[in-house]
């Protein structure tokens, strides 16, 4: 057997091992699920009078197969504690685990995309750069992976130590799938290590495709793992599969597939990707700022750009996923939705709106700065001030609140529930207009960036340019017109206007990107992209993006968790601890900042540890002359 054949056989065996690891938890779980499924039938035969319960969500009947949710009392039995607020300790442990978990789940998805781009790119130098980038990414995540596991352990111990009754109840409900969760984690670890250590062994031809297949399997496992973890959160917010007393009714699928599970899954998947992009962009920014040579600066500038572009690509659909989640929340319990958007937690949504604006403003700023490394992009610089104006207007409208919880004195001072002038901008109609204007402007910035150093050579270039200009102008007019129209029509009709507004924005995104790509095919280059020749300020924009995203994740997690108010499991298990109240906005903000900074300090430590590992010399990268570097995907 030749060397190549032996490698192929070994690679296929490794791939089979991964598939085996993926299927292993499922196979192992089948008997237990089967028992769970058969149990009601068996019980029926044995005892026709078996106690039945009605599913609180699915409204189906099932044989009671578990104990009621415990009625806790404040004391050392149900709420043992240290000399510190237990909820804050759990908040910290949970948030750190979540940050690291999100990061290590997002990075392999990036790797898969970048490795694939490297494989399909015809330019060999560029292919090597992509491959090196994907390898760099996975190397970073490998160190973070161990820390994620450690933090997961700490989280479980925190639960067991501080909330034993609550954790005991959740564990009893999820018992049929607990071992699957553990086995999936083992499978994730196994596949990750095979994937990482097999990189050099499988770098060409057929073997490379096998390697890419491994990353697909790795991501399938990771995603399933996250879905399983989300089912706990979903159950706590919108329980199903139990009766009113919280007794398990034997159908684990109902417990997992709660009202909010799917929207939570999608929202978290997109959120993880945007977050992962932010972290890698910050890493690149750090390396860029610390670089001593032009070659290093060129490499990390490019890396930062790719990470930012990937992050923003997932940031754009995130508000729509959030909208779906909120719609499902309202459909599940209207008062839960109102508590979020118009009640106790509404100020936090104002912060969220502010942060979404910050994220888009940072992205735009980075793109404008990035145009500085392209000869020919100067022609757009004079128009940037108009974009700033448009973005600022959209932003101000977007963050204006409408109805807020106020004291009588505040109410009197304001002269009513809404401010006489600003109140007009607080309605959903105006806000939808604001955010769509911001996203459309970001799309426009991207289009300008992508054609920065190019002049289209297609025969219809002039027509194309006019068409694009008119298209964007019409988009702005349509979005703003619909926002104004919203003031003159009933609320139930107004809600429907968000659809054409979003459709307009997405049309700009997809259609203008596609048209631009066609126009720029074979375009005349005014000059190369001089990677590394970008201002240090741009790198701070990336850091701003990363920090703001981390902060927003912490904020939204807090909001999602707080909306249960004084319930451990909504309407099923009451929180009777001394911490069953909701903190003030200020306390939450301080706590989120602490979590964010702890995460960044620790991940910078992880980066530093990563740099200690034996380096895979980026010879190929350094060989590329800055400026003549091939264009990154997605940019041109």
């Amino acid at each position, binding site marked *: 057997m030749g060397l190549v054949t032996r490698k192929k056989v070994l690679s296929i065996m490794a791939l089979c091992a991964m598939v085996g690891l993926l299927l292993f938890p499922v196979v192992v779980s089948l008997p237990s699920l089967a028992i769970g499924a058969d149990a009601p039938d068996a019980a029926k035969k044995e005892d026709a009078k078996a106690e039945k319960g009605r599913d609180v969500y699915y409204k189906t009947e099932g044989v009671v197969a578990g104990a009621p949710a415990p009625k806790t009392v404040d004391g050392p039995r149900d709420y043992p504690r240290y000399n510190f607020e237990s909820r804050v300790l759990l908040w910290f442990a949970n948030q750190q685990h979540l940050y690291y978990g999100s990061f290590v789940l997002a990075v392999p998805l990036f790797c898969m995309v970048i490795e694939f781009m490297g494989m399909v790119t015809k330019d060999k130098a560029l292919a090597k750069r992509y491959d090196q980038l994907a390898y760099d990414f996975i190397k970073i995540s490998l160190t973070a992976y161990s820390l994620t596991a450690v933090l997961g352990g700490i989280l479980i111990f925190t639960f067991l130590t501080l909330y034993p009754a609550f954790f005991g109840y959740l564990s009893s409900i999820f018992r049929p799938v607990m071992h699957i969760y553990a086995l999936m984690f083992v499978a994730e670890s196994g596949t990750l290590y095979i994937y990482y250590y097999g990189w050099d062994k499988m770098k060409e031809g057929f073997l490379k495709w096998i390697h890419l297949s491994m990353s697909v399997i790795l991501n399938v496992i990771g995603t399933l793992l996250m879905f399983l973890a989300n089912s706990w959160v979903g159950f706590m917010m919108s329980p199903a599969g139990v009766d009113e007393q919280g007794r398990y009714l034997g159908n684990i699928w109902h417990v997992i597939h709660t009202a909010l599970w799917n929207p939570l899954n999608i929202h978290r998947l997109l959120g993880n990707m945007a977050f992962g992009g932010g972290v890698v962009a910050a890493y690149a920014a750090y390396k860029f700022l610390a670089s001593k040579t032009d070659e290093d600066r060129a490499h990390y500038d490019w890396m930062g750009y790719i990470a930012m572009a990937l992050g923003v690509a997932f940031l754009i659909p995130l508000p729509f996923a959030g909208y779906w989640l909120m719609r499902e929340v309202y459909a599940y319990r209207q008062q839960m939705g109102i508590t979020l958007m118009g009640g106790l937690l509404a100020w936090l949504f104002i912060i969220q709106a502010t942060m979404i604006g910050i994220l888009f403003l940072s992205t735009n700023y980075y793109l404008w700065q990035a145009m500085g490394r392209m000869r020919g992009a100067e022609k757009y610089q004079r128009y940037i001030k108009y974009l700033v104006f448009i973005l600022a207007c959209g932003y101000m409208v977007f963050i204006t609140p409408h109805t807020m919880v106020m004291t009588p004195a505040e109410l009197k001072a304001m002269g009513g529930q809404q401010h006489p002038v600003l109140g007009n901008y607080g309605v959903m109609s105006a806000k939808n207009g604001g955010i769509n204007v911001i996203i459309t402007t970001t799309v426009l910035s991207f289009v300008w960036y992508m054609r920065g150093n190019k002049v289209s050579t297609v025969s219809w270039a002039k027509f194309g340019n006019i068409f694009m200009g008119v298209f964007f102008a019409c988009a702005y007019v349509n979005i703003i017109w619909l926002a104004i129209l919203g003031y003159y029509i009933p609320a139930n009709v107004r809600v429907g206007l968000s659809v054409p507004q979003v459709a307009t924005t997405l049309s700009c995104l997809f259609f203008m990107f596609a048209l631009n790509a066609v126009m720029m095919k074979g375009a005349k280059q005014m000059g190369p992209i001089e990677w590394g020749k970008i201002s240090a300020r741009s790198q701070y924009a990336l850091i701003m993006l990363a920090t703001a995203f981390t902060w927003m994740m912490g904020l939204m997690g807090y909001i999602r968790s707080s909306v249960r108010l004084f319930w451990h499991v909504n309407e099923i298990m009451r929180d009777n601890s001394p911490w069953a109240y909701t903190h003030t906005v200020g306390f939450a903000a301080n706590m989120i*900042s602490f979590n964010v900074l702890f995460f*960044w300090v620790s991940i910078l430590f992880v980066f530093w540890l990563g740099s200690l590992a034996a380096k895979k010399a980026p010879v190929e990268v350094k060989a590329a002359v800055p400026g003549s570097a091939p264009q990154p995907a997605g940019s041109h």
Partner: protein
Amino acid sequence: MINQALDMGWPALALLAGLLIYFQVSISDPAAKKRATFKTFIGMIATFLLFVAIANYKENFYGENRLLPVSLVMLTAASFMMALYFANLAALLKIGGAMFFVAAVLSGYGNWLPQVEGGFPPKEEKLDFSSMTAQQLADEGEKIIFGGIGKNKEQGAIGKGQCPLCHAFHAGMLGERAPNLIGLPERAGKERLEDPKYSKGNPSKREYAQKEAFTGSGTAENGQEYIAESHACPSCYVVAGFGVKGTNDKESPMPAIHKPPISLSLPELAAVDTWLYVREGRDAPSFDEIVKSYEKFIPEADRPKQQEEKAGPASALMADGTEPVDQIFAKAQCVACHTIPGIPGATGTIGPKLVEGTNAPSRMKDKEYKGTAKSTADYIMESVVLPSAYVVKPFPDNTMPKVFGQKLSAGALKKIVDYLSQVYEGKEPPKIS
């Protein structure tokens, strides 16, 4: 705070001072010596700022001091200052500084916004509604709906029933999510019951998500029964324009009020309904009549059981935490023995004056201190719950009752701790909240 920072940070500062001396002795090149001295000096300033920031956090974390983000500004300044002079770590320090800055801005923003705190879950107390007068019952109803007597016109006031989340209660107020309930007692028996869609007496003809509250319950025969049915089975009849979106007004978004999460008992529902009548100057049906109307639409098995009164005197709380802090002090009789700056009438001299922001740090260091508290807040909590952990001289031990841990709710204790931790000798007392 500076003292506390020095208490915590002195080893690090001493180490840097040692380095300073070492550089003076070991470096002979004057330029290099000057550089090293200067850098060490910068390091000492940054270290001091770091510990002041930590002390600020440590001292004020639970006090919910809105100036906590100042700590982050200090760390930002320290990071950038260090970055200026430590070139080899400049990138890391600048990035750290930028992150601290972003966090400081966002934290500051969060602290600048109006501070709304979600109260503790509604206390489950047993009241004998059946023997109340109509006005007393209406008052209890107002508490359930709005959280307090006389709060019905207050924006954002909300009680256990959560009704104002969706309903408006006064003329001219628009409830986009649910009908305005002004005039309901009159409307219920006329417009609603006469609406063909209501199908009075013939529930099978109804075209809503639910035809009856439960099989055989039938429809309402009078206005009160209509109100009871709309609480128990909101989807038995939906007012046009207020259904769940996409159901063509066939399904109501309102939860059944006798079920979780609201779970009002029948007597509580009677109180709520009585308020609806009394506030319009109408005669309300009797308690028994209202309860009977609900029994028609809520089967016995589904009726929420009233909370059993807990055995023993421990359940009789002096304060549940919903009161302003001065009332908590008054209800718990603290004012009789202690002088508390800022609390009207708190001029007692049987116990020590409570200026805990000043006293607590030194008392925790006292040799006779037997407690475990590490912060001012913990010390105050401990001295309320376990008064003997530290006995202030010359006051005798065992004078203060040791039952406050059971007699005050966690919310009330928290308010006491928050207040007292901000009381300093010679300074303006904090505002009562």
